[in-house]
């Protein structure tokens, strides 16, 4: 080490700030950097192009004597429903270590030892991961789907309803991002996080037709159906607003519980 004299950098001013957002912009910059300045974004994009657009392109190419409008609905519905399920599973698997991993590595303890709000620590992950998945798993595949449909389908896809359906799919993405991060705040190991998240999704696949409607409406299981119903312009048997409102409330509750728990964490 060499001796240096202390040089006051007069141009620098304290970052300041108070409340829950202290340190948020710096943390967001770091979290977005991990998405967009590494290979993560294009790997995720590639995966979803293969899964979502691959499956729907096969459907578009193999019409099997279906009527043009039925084929459009089949392709759109498949795209939306596969997105709702597969992206949910991917979110749980990808983000299970987002907070737990930082806790295990000691980087969470390091960051919160700086003038940073713990709420900002969780919020930065929530915002960055939601944005990352929404763009790579929803927005880009949706755009590619519409372009593909333009070329392969005889009937056009209705852009407005399709966009509405994808907005509901984005709500589904937000639910699983918040759920996984909240579980990461509550548990110290990856097992319970992945277990609870994946079980919730799979239970929806197997039991949503068997359980009473009031129970099913209290889960995020119907968000895929709601999204599909918007996209193909076919109202379902239940009120579409209920699953969306319930999911919205659950997102807020999960986020608040996760943040509360992380604020109580001792490092």
């Amino acid at each position, binding site marked *: *080490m060499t001796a240096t004299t202390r040089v006051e950098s007069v141009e620098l001013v304290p*970052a300041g700030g108070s409340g829950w957002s202290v340190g948020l912009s710096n943390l967001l910059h770091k979290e977005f950097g991990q998405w967009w300045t590494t290979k993560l974004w294009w790997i995720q994009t590639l995966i979803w192009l293969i899964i979502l657009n691959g499956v729907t392109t096969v459907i578009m190419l193999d019409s099997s004597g279906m009527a043009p409008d039925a084929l459009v609905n089949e392709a759109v519905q498949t795209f939306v429903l596969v997105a709702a399920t597969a992206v949910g599973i991917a979110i749980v698997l990808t983000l299970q270590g987002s907070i737990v991993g930082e806790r295990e590595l000691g980087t969470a303890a390091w960051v919160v*030892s700086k003038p940073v709000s713990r709420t900002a620590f969780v919020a930065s992950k929530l915002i960055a991961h939601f944005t990352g998945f929404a763009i790579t798993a929803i927005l880009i595949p949706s755009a590619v789907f519409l372009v593909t449909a333009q070329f392969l389908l005889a009937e056009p896809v209705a852009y407005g309803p399709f966009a509405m359906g994808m907005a509901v799919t984005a709500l589904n993405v937000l639910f699983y991002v918040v759920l996984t991060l909240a579980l990461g705040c509550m548990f110290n190991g990856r097992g319970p996080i992945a277990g609870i998240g994946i079980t919730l999704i799979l239970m929806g696949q197997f039991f949503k037709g068997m359980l009473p409607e009031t129970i099913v409406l209290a889960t995020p299981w119907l968000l895929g159906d709601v999204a599909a119903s918007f996209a193909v312009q076919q109202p379902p048997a239940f009120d579409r607003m209920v699953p969306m409102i319930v999911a919205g409330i659950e997102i807020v509750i999960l986020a608040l519980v996760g943040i509360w728990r992380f604020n109580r964490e001792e490092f």
Partner: protein
Amino acid sequence: MQSASTETGVVTQRPVAEQQSREMSGPAVIHASGLSKRFGSIEALTGLDLSVPQHSIVGFLGPNGAGKTTAIKLLLGLSRPTSGQATVFGLDAVQDSTAIRSRVGYLAQDPRFYTHLTARETLEFTAKFFFRGPKLAIQNRIEETLDLVGLTDKADRPTKGLSGGERQRLGIAQAQVNHPDLLVLDEPAAALDPLGRRDVLKIMERLREHTTIFYSTHILDDVQRVSDHVVILHQGRKVADATTSQLLDGGCSYQIDIRGDGTTARTTLEGQPWVSEVVLATTENGDRMMVTVTNQEAGDALLLRSILRDDALTVTNFGRMHHNLEEVFLHLVEGQET
């Protein structure tokens, strides 16, 4: 105490900190009162009272598991006390922890950083929590800090490629990048080789003009070299809290080497109200008397005169005893255990 040196003896080794000793008169940067922390049935910290004056270097000393790291985390608001309270810069450690941390540089015991970031990026990331300004000004601050810890040539290496010592230096750099009013270092020299340790101590001495330094360690030699105040913890309890010189003066004892029968002198001294203990031992070169006094002024003025009243005695060496910190530490810790 097994060994001691005298002011008139040859082996006296005055610690740097003692030479630079300053009165602990500044306003308290850290103040703790009855600070306690319990983890289940384990009492990690019990009723810690603490006051750290401005611009002091305070060594927080204790064996492993003594509660040093727990206390530091409580002060920084990283953990909540079971009872008691602490303030830093007059701000409550629980309620105002973010404001406190904006003025503190903290090095954790085992610092961990994002492995994909380089040392420079790590400092940039850290710096942006504390200040904003032109990019060039931030870069200058980072260059200055890298230079301070000797990491300029490794600045663009990802942190996963740094050795333990280099990571420790980066830890010191990130703690210092905001030019903090208070530097809290948890075992800053533990992972360093002797040269690295020496450099860290030099940095600490240089920073004391601007910063209060509160650091934990179990390397007693380091504490003796740079600290002007020492707090010793053992099993979660404070067992000593004094300036380094006070601690090393060890309750004011004297060592007197004599030739001749010292029993009369011992009896005389034991009758003096300002003498608390007299030990007479035989050494290879004659007898040695170790006298502990309750009043240092009386000891300085009267002790030698009292001994020389016995005409049969010759005093060959006389001086106040200086203990090293290891002796004091072991004495205190073992005393607590018994």
